[in-house]
Structures are given as structure tokens and as C-alpha cells.
């Protein structure tokens, strides 16, 4: 195993990691504030991918317009998230977890078929934006510019979310809601708006990651249920509700998957689920989270 080979495995793992962080950050955000595991987060991600494809078709049928399309898709999914919270989810607060879980699963079923109905079952893809279409040589390996962009955007989003939560008034409200919802309510804050905003932001991040994956992965039905379990693993490893936990959880997940293939060929899938189980057994609140 040459150093350059190990480096390329590492970069592969890092790409997976940062990409999963984009998805899992929204999942973790909603869990932290609302104590809800949102199965539909993967569906929001899938809709981000399909809507980005659709926007590219409308804007520039010949190609191009990727960045605007990705932004529009993410905004549309954010709106979908806000509507979901306002229209349905609101009436499930205070009900048992089972009903909340199953509601988000009902969304998985409905959105999954809606995507099939709207876009068919064929694979769709978007070409890489021209500015990032090339590749560079790093330590004797060829790294496509687009994957380097994904690796860079992970920490950028993490830092942005950290600023939002820790350095703004809205963020302070969110953190307060995380600690004691009823007290915040009693103090006159509009908790309902905070919840809607969190749900919208979470869906926006899912939609954005869905849109950004399209140049490297084709868009297919079923991508929603495949990604959501991986996002669960990441959030569980790092600690449900913890931003930096989710970040490091993604890094660990990416590397375990990437190097697990080398150590146990064919059993890397097993190793990530085993890691999830071990962490839940030893530290249910994750490596970086705090006990509830």
C-alpha cells in the first residue's frame, strides 16, 4: 500500500464525510431542538436533487446554470419543510415518539412516489459546472476539483451554522428552545416560529446537499432511503443534536467506510452499522453529545 494510495482512500473518505455532514447537519439540528428523528430528511435530499435537475432543464437546457439551479432547489425544499411543519407536524408535538416517527415515514412514502410520478424511474444526471470540471494533482493522486469543493464546503457550512447558533439572536433563541421549550414559551418568545424556521433550515440543507450531489452521483428513486440510514449513523456517532459531533461523526464514518473496505473487503457496510450499534451501547448520546 503506497502512501499515495492511502492518501486517495483518505480523500475518498473525506469526500463522503463532508457530503454526509451536509445532510446530517440538518437532521441533527431538528433532533437537537425538537427531539424528533426525521425519516423524511432523506426525501428532502432526494427532492433537492430532482428539483436541481428540473431547474437546470428550465434555465439552461443545453447545460450550465448549475449554481442558480442548486440554490433554487434548496430554497424550494426549505419551503416544503416549512409547510410540512406548519400544516402537519405542529399537531404532533406532545404525542408519542411513535406517531412522530411514523408521520415522517408517511412523508417518505408519499414523497418517494411523488418523485417517481413527476420524474419517472430513469437515472438522471447533471454535468459538473465548467469552473470545477477539471482536476489537480495532489501527492501523486488525481483529485477532481468538484470533490475538493465538496470537502471545502463541509467545514464552511459547519462554521456558518456555528456562527448562526452562537453569535446571533435567532441562534440564542434556538439554543434556549433546545434547553427548555416551555420556559421560553412562558417568557413570551414565539417558539412556533423558531420550530418552523429550524425545520425550514434543516430541509434547506438537505435540499442543498441533494442538489450538490448531482454532478457526482446519478439521481435515482430510492436514493432517499439509502442516504437516511447513513445520516442516522453519522448523527448517532457524533451525538444527536450536537453540531460539531455531527461534523466529527461524519469524518469518522467516512474513514471507517473508506478503510474498512481495505481491511474487511465486502464488510465495510457491516462495520459502519456495527460502529453505530457499539456507540449506542457504550455512549447513547454519542462521542460529542451530552446525556439528555
Amino acid at each position, binding site marked *: 500500500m503506497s502512501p499515495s494510495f492511502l492518501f486517495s482512500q483518505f480523500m475518498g473518505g473525506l469526500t463522503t464525510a463532508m457530503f454526509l455532514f451536509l445532510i446530517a447537519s440538518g437532521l441533527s439540528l431538528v433532533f437537537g431542538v425538537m427531539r424528533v428523528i426525521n425519516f423524511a430528511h432523506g426525501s428532502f435530499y432526494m427532492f433537492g436533487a430532482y428539483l436541481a435537475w428540473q431547474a437546470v432543464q428550465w434555465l439552461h437546457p443545453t447545460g450550465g446554470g448549475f449554481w442558480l439551479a442548486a440554490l433554487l432547489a434548496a430554497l424550494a425544499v426549505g419551503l416544503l419543510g416549512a409547510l410540512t411543519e406548519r400544516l402537519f407536524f405542529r399537531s404532533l408535538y406532545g404525542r408519542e*415518539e411513535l406517531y412522530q*416517527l411514523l408521520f415522517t415515514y408517511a412523508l417518505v412514502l408519499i414523497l418517494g*412516489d411523488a418523485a417517481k410520478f413527476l420524474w419517472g424511474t430513469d437515472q438522471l444526471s447533471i454535468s459538473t459546472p465548467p469552473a470545477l470540471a477539471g482536476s489537480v494533482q495532489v501527492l501523486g493522486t488525481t483529485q477532481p476539483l468538484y470533490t475538493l469543493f465538496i470537502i471545502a464546503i463541509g467545514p464552511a457550512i459547519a462554521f456558518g451554522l456555528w456562527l448562526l447558533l452562537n453569535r446571533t439572536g435567532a441562534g440564542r433563541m434556538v439554543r434556549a428552545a433546545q434547553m427548555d421549550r416551555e420556559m421560553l414559551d412562558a417568557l413570551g418568545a414565539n417558539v412556533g416560529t423558531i420550530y418552523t424556521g429550524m425545520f425550514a433550515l434543516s430541509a434547506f440543507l438537505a435540499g442543498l446537499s441533494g442538489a450538490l450531489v448531482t454532478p457526482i452521483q446519478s439521481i435515482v428513486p430510492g436514493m432517499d432511503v439509502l442516504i437516511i440510514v447513513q445520516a442516522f449513523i453519522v448523527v448517532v456517532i457524533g451525538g444527536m443534536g450536537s453540531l460539531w459531533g455531527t461534523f466529527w461523526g461524519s469524518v469518522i464514518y467516512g474513514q471507517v467506510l473508506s478503510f474498512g473496505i481495505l481491511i474487511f473487503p465486502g464488510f465495510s457496510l457491516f462495520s459502519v452499522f456495527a460502529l453505530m*450499534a457499539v456507540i449506542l451501547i457504550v455512549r447513547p448520546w454519542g462521542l460529542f453529545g451530552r446525556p439528555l
Partner: protein
Amino acid sequence: MGPIRAAAVTVAATAPELRRRTTAAATVRRRRAVSDRIPWVAIVFLVMATVPWLGTRYDTFLASQIVIDALFAVSLNLLLGTTGLVSFGHIAYFGIGAYVCGILMKTYGVPFSVAFPAAGLGAALFALISGYFCVRLIKLYFAMLTLAFSQIVWAIAYKWNAVTGGDQGLPEIPYPNLDWMSAIPGFGDLSIGARFYLLTLALVAVALAIVHRIVRSPFGRVLTTIRDNPERAAFLGINVRLYQLAAFVIAGGFAGLAGALYGIFSRGVFADYVFWSKSAEILIMTILGGIGYFWGPPVGAAVLVWLNQVITDYTQYWSFVLGAVLLVLLFGFPGGIVGGLDLLWRRLKRLLNA
């Protein structure tokens, strides 16, 4: 058992919601003495037994699916409705049962009479190991760990080519030898599929009778006490985790038996059977029927299998319909079909008596 049992009865008697339910049940029982004397369950089983003679091959196919799903859903409800544990990985035990029975019968030529109980034991053993860890966690963490264990089973089924057939699965699992049925008058002309259906029906009937017995036993009462108030149960000296683990193992074992029957019925076991979304589907089935009632989940199984057959004649968008049904259920009828009917029946009675 003595003092614990007495304690559980005390808890049950003092829990206000339970007391209300018991009084309501007593009132209903007094009023519908006649309908109570009709053995509904036995009648339904007898009608189901006539399907191979009176129905088409397709009816037998659907009935097989309903009967197997009914056992699977009842095993889940032992956790969900009786003990109050939300498992998101119950498909794992079903899958293990299907694989154990399928591998024993196909690869090693073991007879069904040995492979079937082995499937239940295998699933129960894995439930013991995984459950030992799961019952230490609460609520969402419990759900996540059951999901993780079921995905471990899926990953193994999907990748361990030598034993499970990997992504190719285990096709062509043989039917058990049912030639002895020819000796029974009227059974001579039945196809092997119809004979296996009758065997399935008989085995599921016995299994359901056993689960029913367990739920109604003092042990079952302790489980409902734990569901209603785990802290109080622990305060009374009940080893909550031990009872939860026992329920987990029993539920896993019966899920394994259902899986064994399913593998033979569907002529093969495939890794897709064990994917996590199947756990969600069986949860929907159970809730659709009503988790507060023993016969709720079988009703849910029958309605869902029937609905699937009707809907897929018109459209390929079955998931959409299932999601919509789930929404109506969650927002409109949290008690499920049996819960809704029970409510309707009681209102009707009150109207007639007013």
C-alpha cells in the same frame, strides 16, 4: 412470581386509565352477552381454512400472506402495544427466521419439522443478544439501536455470499413434504401450495393462541404495568429490564417463525426482505389494526394485504396510498381500525340505550 404478581395487580387496579378501561369493558361485556358467546376467532379461522376449496389459487396466495403477516404483526405488538417498546428493527428477527429455515432446508436438507422450530430459536437467540443491549436504552435510542441491529443483519445477509447467497439470495427453497395430507379425505386434490397454506394456518393458529395466552397471563400483566408506568413498576420490585428482555425474546422468536413460513411461501429468501423499510411497513400494519387490541394487528394485516391487491390493480403508486392511509390514521384514528370500530360500537350502544 407471587408478590410481583400481586404488586402488578395493585398497579393495574390503581392506574386510573386502566381502571376506566376495565369498567368500560365490564359494561360492554354485560350489555353484549349474546355477541360475546359467539366464538368470533374460531369462526374466522374456520372460514380461512375453506379458502383452498372455495377460493381461487390467488385467494389462497393472498390468504397465506395475510396469515403470515398476522403472526408477524402480533409478535411486534407484544413489544409495541403490550410492553410499550417501539422497535424499528423487528424485520431482523423475521429475516433471521427466514434465513435459518431456508438454509437448513435448502442447503442441508433438514426436514421442516426441525428447521421450523430452529428458525424460531435462532431468531430468539439473536433477540436475546441484541435485546440485552436494547432494553438498556430509552425511547428514541432504543428505536435507533434496534434499527442498527437490523441493518447489521441486512449487511450480513447482503454480503455473506457463501451462506446467504448475498444479493442473489436463496432461491427455490423446497416445500416441506406434505404427502401425508393425502390420507385426509378431501385433501387428495390439493396442490402443494394449498397444503402448505393449511399447514401455515394451523401453525399460526397455535402460535397466536400461545401469544394470546402469554399476553393474558400474570407475566403479560406485568408487561402492561411496565408499559403504563415503568418507574412505578420498578418501585414495586419488578425487574423492568428483565421483563422487557423476556418480551423482546418472545417477540423475536415468533417473528422468526413467521419469517420461516414466509421464506417457504414466497419460494426464496432475499436480502431485500431484511431492509429497514420493512420494519416500518410492519409497524404501519400493526398500528392500522390497532395496537391496543390483541386482534388489531391481524385485522391490519388482512386490510393492508387486501388494499395492496386492490390498489395495485389501478396504479403502481402503492407507497403513495400507504402513506396517505398512514396520515389519515395518525391524524384521524390513532386507535386503528379495531379501535375505531370499538368506539363506534360503544357510541351506537349508548344511542340505543338513551
